[in-house]
């Protein structure tokens, strides 16, 4: 196999070695003092992904599924190998269930626009939660408006987690789709998606899970979760931007009409009509993001070399340390995350606007996200205009949390004297 050589980060016997891992991320060579706490928005890229994509362009690149020549066959092999890596990564049953898209946003729009009208009729209901990112909210809102269905929002409980009993009470025979996030992009709440899938299926509803924040951080087994669709973006999982994945149960994908049409997704085209390919190619019109898919394959290799159990353990410990340190700062209020929080901490500093906190943190070389995090319904519910959000990746450690805390203290010093 070509591509960049990958170190063996075997962590079965030792804690995840952040210092060793940081050396795999060239961004920290360019910015040695950077405390990068915005992996929830997009993760930095390891050398194996950057070099692997470059090498693919240098020596193996051609269009896929088209050429009769050896290079095109090779490129196609690499593209389809990446699909198989994603299948194994999610423990999907069949690699035909893996559709390459631009990202989670496109994946959800695909299901809502292609599958939605087939699954949903006038008077039916779609349930989303207050924790959803706009990308798992607006496509359903548009769909409901289009077909005359009702969009229902399952609330959070006072601790900031999903109110599972309330969601259960909202489920009924008219519910046809339940779209929930696996891990909240605002407060890091880990949702009981397996249980949600059971409850939804008992009422005959389909379940789509937004895995953007979970896939980079924990083992994910779509068969064990029992959901119908699972989506994620490559760029949050150490892969290139512009590539993402829709996983769907094969029978459901096969029941959905094409979404975009064009080359690569047809079998026969005549003036009288067109016959379309089976999934996944039916949903991959035009030349796909070939190098993005190959790069995502390298990102998965990287994650698997560390081990998702090890990443989960590391990030949970770091999250615990972060919660502990932040909750000791006077005037800092953490957004709740229910029973279990993973890798994402949202907070406000009393008397200081999130944007001002962000600028002070930036001056201390601490990169965080500020604002509404594409979750305005949740911001309204929490009664805030926005928050400051710190989110972790495999390259972060306790020292990064300490730098964050010092920078917050500096912001308080400046604004709250």
């Amino acid at each position, binding site marked *: 196999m070509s591509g960049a050589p990958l170190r063996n980060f075997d962590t079965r016997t030792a804690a995840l070695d952040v210092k060793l891992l940081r050396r795999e991320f060239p961004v920290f060579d360019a910015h040695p003092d950077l405390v990068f706490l915005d992996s929830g928005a997009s993760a930095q890229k390891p050398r194996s992904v950057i070099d692997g994509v470059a090498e693919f362009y240098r020596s193996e690149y051609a269009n896929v599924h088209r050429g009769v020549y050896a290079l095109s066959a090779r490129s196609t092999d690499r593209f389809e190998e990446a699909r198989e890596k994603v299948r194994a990564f999610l423990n999907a049953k069949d690699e035909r269930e893996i559709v390459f898209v631009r990202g989670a946003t496109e994946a959800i729009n695909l299901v809502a626009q292609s599958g939605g009208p087939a699954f949903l009729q006038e008077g039916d209901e779609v349930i989303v939660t207050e924790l959803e990112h706009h990308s798992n909210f607006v496509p359903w809102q548009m769909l409901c408006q289009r077909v005359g269905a009702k969009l229902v929002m399952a609330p959070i409980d006072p601790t900031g987690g999903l109110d599972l009993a309330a969601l259960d009470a909202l489920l009924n025979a008219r519910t046809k789709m339940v779209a929930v996030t696996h891990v909240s992009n605002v407060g890091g709440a880990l949702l009981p998606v397996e249980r949600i899938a059971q409850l939804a299926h008992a009422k005959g509803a389909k379940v789509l899970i937004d895995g953007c924040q979970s896939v980079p951080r924990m083992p994910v087994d779509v068969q064990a979760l029992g959901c119908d669709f699972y989506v994620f973006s490559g760029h949050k999982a150490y892969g290139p931007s512009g590539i993402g994945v829709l996983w769907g149960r094969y029978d459901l994908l096969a029941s959905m009409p094409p979404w975009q049409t064009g080359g690569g997704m047809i079998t026969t085209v005549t003036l009288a009509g067109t016959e379309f390919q089976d999934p996944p190619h039916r949903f991959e019109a035009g030349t796909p993001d070939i190098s993005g898919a190959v790069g995502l394959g390298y990102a998965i290799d990287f994650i698997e070399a560390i081990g998702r159990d090890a990443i989960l353990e590391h990030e949970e410990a770091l999250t615990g340390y972060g919660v502990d340190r932040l909750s000791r700062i006077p005037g800092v209020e953490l957004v709740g995350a229910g029973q279990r929080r993973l890798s994402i901490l949202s907070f406000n500093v009393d008397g*200081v*606007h*999130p*944007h*001002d906190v962000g*600028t*002070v943190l930036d*001056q201390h070389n601490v990169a965080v996200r*500020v*604002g*509404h995090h594409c979750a*305005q319904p949740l*911001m309204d519910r929490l009664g805030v*205009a*926005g928050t400051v959000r710190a989110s972790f990746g495999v390259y972060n450690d306790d020292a990064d949390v300490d730098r964050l805390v010092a920078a917050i203290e500096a912001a308080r010093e*400046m*604004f709250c004297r």
Partner: protein
Amino acid sequence: MMDLRELYQDIILDHGRHPRNFHALENPTHLARGHNPLCGDRVTVYLSIAGDRIADVSFEGRGCAISTAAASLMTEVLKGKSLAEAQALFGRFHAQVTGGDPGELSPELEEDSERLEPLTGVKAYPARVKCATLPWHAFEAALKGGLQGDTVKTE
């Protein structure tokens, strides 16, 4: 690294904490809203224009220290100005924070412009320039829209 205190000068922190003219006008002749969808900041600018002059100006809203201070200082310099003078001040301020041609102002307006000087530190922070210009864009929209209550967005 630029010293943060060049951005957050005392006068900015003071106006951010204790904004001046921070209320609605009872009988405005013009009003408009500004909204920065990126950070959720909102400002409403009220004007009372008599003839060619800004007899009174005030604002309400919620925002960061920069946008609150910018709105507060704006209301202070605009009060009593003719519409042409107000436009000239905005032109100068906009040029200062975005790196455009500052142009010439009359000696009296130069004095007002100097009062806005502390805000020009934002030009070193591209993500924050819109915070400083938001209230001015709302002011401009109010002039154009009268009492329609238009909303301008920064994006």
